[in-house]
Structure formats: structure tokens, C-alpha cells
């Protein structure tokens, strides 16, 4: 502060804050990540014990209904390590957790790590796409509504958004399959329909690279829509409110008084301020989308982690369920961290004043 005061010739020239230039963001991120380790292990441990409380025997579930005598079942239990006391199983699981193996999946007959490596990228693709669509559509629609407040477009969009916001994801998914896949293709014979399952067409290998990209996107349409629509509706709702508040601010009037075109006033001066509350929602919405994949991937036969967990629960595949949960917990932690970092990037007041 001393430099500012010394230079000031005649007046109030001292700044309110000298501003710590570029707070050490990476150290902050590291500190948050280290702090999250016990949390994530704790959550996984709780899930470990809770799934073991669930009724059903994984060994029996591996066999056909009614099949297998007691000797076979006992043998399977021994192979899977299920014959040992729970606390021993827990210590073993914890060991596998720290080596990064996450144990051995009963139902898939493969190390959990391999199962995750196969499914996680698919989930990341679907969720990432859905999130991008949700935020993109939500922000644009909310901004249009705010700028045209009380217009017919605003009212119609509000009703449409409420409709999708209120709709359960699984039902929307089924309706999309029914209308845009089955009916469109077989009954109405529309030129445009979308695949209801799988990630790529069977002839994927024969396609050119552009064709492959198009094929992937084509398969993404329905699951990503089902996953993102209600989210987009929620984001648009927030965005509208946030934008309405911001466009009444003095600095927006200042921007207009400079003679800036309305496009710049809204998309440069207002939008960036209006995004701040939306950014905080990143921390809530990313985990929401990831957990949404459990249902949506099952409906669309999408070979991702969500469907894997769904199946693993049915099969009482304890290591897989716990590992999946661990990943979801990790998502929550990372999403919140991402939200905080984005917030600091978007708003210089946070960047300079907090300990970020």
C-alpha cells in the first residue's frame, strides 16, 4: 500500500486493494486435491460396508437360477475371497485401492481397473457432450429470454422449459426412443431418425474419418438429449434470472452510453457477469450428469460406467460397485474444484480478494 500513497500527489489515489497479482492457483488446486483424499476414501469405505449389507449372494448370482450345489457355491465364494470375515475383506480392498487395481470384478471376470478403463471413456464422452449441450443451450436460451423479457418468445420458452424441467429423465429417454427412433424410422418413415442403442454403427470400421465422427455424433444425439434437456432447462431458468439482474446494472448502462452496439453490450458486458452464478452450478451439475448416466446408459445400451454400475449392483459385484462409487465421489470433488477455479477466472474480484 505504501507505494500508492507515496505517489499520490493530491488525493485519494491509494487503491482499495493493491491486489495480489495472480494468486497461486496451482498450489490452491493441489491443496484441495490432497484434502479430498480422506473424503473420497471415507465415502468408498462406507459404500463398501453398505453394499455388503445388501441381501443376495454374488456367488449364487453368477450361476444360472437354481443351478449349482453348495460345494460349487462354496468354491466360488472361496475364489472370490467372500469366505473371509468382512474386516479382512475390507483391508484387502483398501490394499487393492492403493495399488490402483480396485480388486477383481466377479461378474466381468476381469480386474476392476480394466473394466473401468473400458467404460470410463465412453461415459466421459456422453457426459461431456451432454454438459456442453446443457450449458450451451441453457445459457443462450436464458439470455434470449432475459433480453426479451415478457415477450411471446419469453413466455413460450418458459413453458417449454418447465415442461422439460419437470420431466423424469428415464421417461424422456423412453419417449425419445419411441418417437425419434422407432416411430420415426418404422411408422412415420421420416428421413431423419436416430439410433436407440450402441455408440457406433456396425459398419463403423468401414467409414471414413469424417463418417466416423458423424456416426458417433448421430449415436450421441438421443442419449445426450435425454441426459441434458432437463439440465438445460434448469440452467436457462437460472441464466434468465441472473441476466435480468445484470442488464439492470449501472455498468450495462455505461456500456450503452459509450455507443456500443447492443450485441456487445449483452454478450460482452452483461453475459460475463451473468455467468458467475451459473459457474457455481458446474459443481452441482457435473455430478448430476454423471449419476444420470446410470439410468440413461442403461436405456440406450451405452457401454459406459453408469450402465456398468447398474449391472454390477444387480450382480452384487462388490468391488465394481465400490470402485464406481469412488469415481462418482471423485467427480463431485473435481467438479466443485473446477467450479471454484472457473469462478476465480470469471470474476477478478474473487481472484484478487480470496485466498485462491
Amino acid at each position: 500500500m505504501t507505494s500508492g500513497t507515496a505517489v499520490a500527489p493530491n488525493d485519494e489515489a491509494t487503491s482499495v486493494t493493491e491486489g495480489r497479482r495472480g494468486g497461486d492457483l496451482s498450489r490452491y488446486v493441489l491443496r484441495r486435491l490432497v484434502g479430498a483424499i480422506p473424503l473420497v476414501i471415507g465415502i468408498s469405505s462406507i459404500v463398501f460396508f453398505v453394499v455388503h449389507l445388501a441381501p443376495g449372494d454374488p456367488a449364487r448370482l453368477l450361476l444360472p437360477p437354481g443351478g449349482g450345489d453348495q460345494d460349487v457355491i462354496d468354491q466360488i465364494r472361496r475364489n472370490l475371497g467372500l469366505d473371509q470375515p468382512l474386516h479382512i475383506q475390507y483391508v484387502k480392498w483398501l490394499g487393492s485401492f492403493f495399488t490402483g487395481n480396485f480388486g477383481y470384478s466377479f461378474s466381468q471376470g476381469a480386474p476392476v481397473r480394466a473394466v473401468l478403463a473400458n467404460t470410463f471413456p465412453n461415459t466421459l464422452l456422453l457426459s461431456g457432450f451432454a454438459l456442453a449441450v446443457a450449458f450451451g443451450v441453457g445459457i443462450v436460451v436464458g439470455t434470449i429470454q432475459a433480453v426479451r423479457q415478457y415477450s411471446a418468445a419469453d413466455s413460450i420458452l418458459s413453458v417449454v422449459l418447465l415442461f422439460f424441467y419437470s420431466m423424469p429423465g428415464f421417461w424422456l429417454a423412453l419417449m425419445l426412443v419411441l418417437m425419434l427412433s422407432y416411430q420415426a424410422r418404422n411408422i412415420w418413415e421420416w428421413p431423419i431418425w436416430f439410433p436407440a442403442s450402441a455408440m457406433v454403427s456396425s459398419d463403423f470400421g468401414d467409414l471414413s474419418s469424417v463418417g466416423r465422427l458423424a456416426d458417433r455424433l448421430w449415436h450421441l444425439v438421443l442419449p445426450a438429449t435425454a441426459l441434458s434437456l432437463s439440465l438445460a432447462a434448469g440452467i436457462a431458468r437460472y441464466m434468465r434470472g441472473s441476466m435480468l439482474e445484470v442488464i439492470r446494472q449501472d455498468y450495462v448502462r455505461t456500456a450503452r452510453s459509450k455507443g456500443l452496439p447492443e450485441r456487445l453490450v449483452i454478450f460482452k458486458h452483461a453475459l460475463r457477469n451473468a455467468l458467475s452464478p451459473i459457474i457455481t452450478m458446474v459443481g452441482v451439475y457435473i455430478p448430476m450428469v454423471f449419476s444420470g448416466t446410470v439410468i440413461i446408459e442403461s436405456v440406450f445400451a451405452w457401454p459406459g460406467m453408469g450402465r456398468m454400475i447398474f449391472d454390477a449392483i444387480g450382480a452384487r459385484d462388490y468391488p465394481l460397485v465400490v470402485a464406481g462409487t469412488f469415481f462418482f465421489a471423485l467427480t463431485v470433488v473435481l467438479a466443485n474444484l473446477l467450479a471454484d477455479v472457473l469462478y476465480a477466472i470469471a470474476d477478478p474480484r474473487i481472484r484478487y480478494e480470496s485466498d485462491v
Partner: protein
Amino acid sequence: MSKTLLSVSDLRTWFHTDQGVGRAVDGVSFEVRAGETLGIVGESGCGKTVTSLSILRLLPEPPARIEPGSSIVFDGEELLGATQERMRALRGNEISMIFQEPMSSLNPVYTVGSQITEALRLHRKMDRVEARTEAIRLLGEVGIPDADRRVDEYPHQLSGGMRQRVMIAIALSCEPRLLIADEPTTALDVTIQAQILELLADLRARHGMAVLLITHDLGVVAEVCDRVVVMYAGQVVETGTVDEIFARPVHPYTRGLLASLPAVERRGQRLESIPGTVPNSTDWPEGCRFAERCSEVEDACAVQQPLVQLGNTSRVARCWRADP
């Protein structure tokens, strides 16, 4: 007498809301001559801010509407019929504006420099480097030390007075011919008020622009204005030069405002005040709008009175007792 730069006549800016029609500005006329400082004075709610925003057409329409018959002529050009595009070319370029709240008038997420260069690049077609150099020069001109460092700071790193200086730098950046200053010092400490007023007077002299100063503070008017328009309840009640108004106020409202100024010779006495409050703009009283607060009310006041021209001067007052 220098030529008329801005001529506002019979300006009526009404707000059409569910609660009724608020006639915030109701038949206001005045003119600003090139290079002069005109003060518009009045209490909160008298319509002075709406008047200033109407000139640049910065009011949200709806609910605001500038009624037919109003006219705002800037340098021979009628602004009320002008296209949005034409208005944008004038804003920040020929006519610029500074506002009451320096704390909220700057965008918190952009640096001071980027907010100054915007107008320069838009109106004066400067490239990035030129605009930055000019922004630093402007910051220096408005009295910000360390301008080459401050240019990269965000508004929250500056004090209120500094922010108002930045606003002034933005307003000045394209050498406007008219600067509208809406209560530029109201939100600031008294010492900083004086500095900002001094700066405005100094810059006006140097750049030869006209200033339309909106204020409720007659002390400010006395210090920097050439002429004064006194507004009450959406109307002009009196106009004249600063000397005339202070020496010989005609309208009882102007006299009331002057009497409520603290003065050294009245030290120790209670401050005068005008009883009552400004009526609501959706429901102006019939006849003289000041009648119910006026100490000199007479029968004729029940009828709306015209503006009376005083003698051979340019002075006008809206009062029956203002004998020519």
C-alpha cells in the same frame, strides 16, 4: 452569446406501468450553449435524471416513453427521430455521460484500460496499441497517478474517487461536445467531490465542451455552473444565470432551496427546510405542483400556470408571483 448546442423543448418522458402513467418529465424545455456549463437542480424525483437519460435515449422503452411533441435537437439534428444506429454513433462520441455511482458504473470483470479503449476503438477507430497508449494518457489527464500500471487494474482495486476519474476518462476519450454529468459527486466524500468538480471545470475549459450538470446540490451549482435550470415535479420552475438565481430567486421553490443551504453567517441557527415531499409522478396535483408546499400560495395557484418570462431577460419562472 455562443450558439445553441442542445435544445430540449417540451420534453415529456412518461413511464407507462401497471400502477398508472408516471409523468416523470412533463414538458421540460431548456438549452445548452456550446462550451457552457448548465446545471439542472432539483430534489430526488423531480425528473432531472430521467431528463438526462432521455437525451441519450438510454431509458428502457417500455416502460419509459418519450411522448410525441417532445423535441431534443443536438447541433441542428433532431435526436428523437434518429435511428438506433445514429444514436450509437453519437453516444460516447459527440455526447457522453458520467453517472452518479462510480462504484457500480464500471464493469467489475474488465480492466479499467479495456473499458476506456472500447470507445476509442469504436469511435476513433484506433488499433489496440494506439488505444492503450491513449487510455494511459487519458488516465494521466484525469489525475490518476501511475497510469501505466492502473490501466491494467480492475475497478474493485480503485477507490470511489478514482473510479469516477476513470468514468470521466471514458467520457472524455472521444472529445465529446457535450458531457452530461448526472450527480457525478453525490456518492463521493466532500474533499473528493471538490477535486472531481475542479477536474471537470478544468477539462471543460481545456476541451471547450459543454457540460450539463445534474445535481441536487446548489453549492455545486454555484461553484461550476454558468446557468441553472431548477426543476420541480417533472417541470422547469425557474431558469437563469447562476448570479441571477442566487441573487434574486423568483420561484418560492428556488428560494426554499437556497434558504436550506447552510451558510456561515447563519451558524448556530436551524437549517431551513421546505415542508412536505415531492408528490408522486403518477399523480401530480392540479394547478401549481408546488402549491401544497408553498408558503406564498394564493387562489390563482389552483390553476396551472405558464412559464413567465422575466422582463427582457432569458429568465423564466413558473409562478404567478413572478411579475415581469
